[in-house]
């Protein structure tokens, strides 16, 4: 037997255990995502009615060449994922100028693609029972200086 612990070593380990277990439990019981790594274990924890609607956000863009294209929302392409846009959807609806920063991100990450002149935030609602889909435009932004877009300068946010 090696490393038999002294009283102090036992005490701090027990205190850390109690602290971690208590905080992670509180995180799920009363906390929110800002508490990460003690955030609620809430992936797929919401309930969806059997006759409900599945919403899915997406972005379209009108390029300077006049083509309507899908904005490739993924970490591999434009650098931000659909779920990250969904998490901030209310901000985009409230301040559509945030879409200017999507144009900036596109120009940084995919500079060889035609620049975005207009960006649309859209939601596709699919009825579970019938499979019928409806597309709604939630926000629209005409990009300022599309070929050399500058950040909106809007502040980020704390947790």
């Amino acid at each position, binding site marked *: 037997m090696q490393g038999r612990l002294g009283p102090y070593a036992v005490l701090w380990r027990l205190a850390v255990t109690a602290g971690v277990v208590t905080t992670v439990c509180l995180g799920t019981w009363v906390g929110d995502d800002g508490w990460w790594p003690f955030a609620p274990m809430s992936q797929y924890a919401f309930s969806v009615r059997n006759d409900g609607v599945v919403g899915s956000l997406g972005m379209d863009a009108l390029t300077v060449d006049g083509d309507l294209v899908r904005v490739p929302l993924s970490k591999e392409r434009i*650098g931000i994922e659909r779920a990250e846009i969904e998490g901030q959807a209310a901000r985009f609806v409230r301040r559509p100028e945030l879409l200017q920063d999507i144009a900036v991100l596109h120009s940084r990450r995919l500079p060889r693609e035609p620049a975005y002149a207009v960006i649309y935030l859209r939601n596709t609602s699919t009825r579970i029972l019938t499979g019928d889909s409806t597309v709604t435009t939630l926000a629209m932004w005409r990009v300022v200086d599309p070929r050399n877009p500058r950040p909106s300068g809007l502040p980020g946010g704390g947790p």
Partner: protein
Amino acid sequence: MRRAEQAVQDFLLPALPLARVAWLRRVVYPFVLLDVLWIVTDPIPHGDVPPSLYRGLLVRSLLHLPVPSHYSVRVLLVVIVVSAVVAATGRLPRLAGYVCAVGMLDWVSNAFAYSKVDHDHFALVVALFVLPTVGPARAADVDVRSTRAGWALRMTQVAAVAVYFLSANAKMRFGGWGWANGATLIWALTRRPHGIGPWVGSHPALTHGLQWVVLVAEFCSPVLLWLRGRALYAALLFWAGFHLSTYLLLQIHFLPLVVCLLAFLPLERLSRPARPRPAATARPREASAEPSSAR
């Protein structure tokens, strides 16, 4: 009172082989490389995202971690890779381990600081912070039992179980008691169609059954901390199968959690593979006062 204290200590600080920690390090730190280079790769493109889309997290504010930039995320990647390689070799277990842990805290919190927070990394983050506390550990230390090792392994086990158990709690908090009879799985399969997912999604009774299985298993998960032998292996196999099926259906794997489940296994046996038993030699049995079942 002393018996209660002793029981708590026996549960949270069992004396376990140092070799198990050595083997776990050989898996966890290489997994960190896999994680930052192939799985959680968001922080690199996040370095190009304008600050307006950065939402932050409490932990990043408390530690004064800066808004990610094009260069800072690349420097961080190098720090994590170097520290994980050193820690995986067993050298500088405390220094390399803590650097890797803090680096991963920055890396993963960066990934989750843009309004999408996953819960698959909780156990891994805990494991990365507790493994360095053990200090030096060699794969040859099969017979060296240590309460330092026992606490680190127990914390990793508790963290893994917490993810499952609290997932069920979150379903009750956010989805309500009707969660298992709802259409959450259909919702997920509709958004991420893959393999046989659409077929499963077209059978509501099947999706309800699967949701009940998951919910009951998550609520019962703390029993993992007391199971032993075949029952433990069967439970671990169930969870491995669960994660494999979510990967096949939804492309969601929870590998950072799966890696931490290895803390339940007697990894030290890898240092000393089981040898075939020598042929039995006939030997007269000694007389015993007790029936064999009682010994």
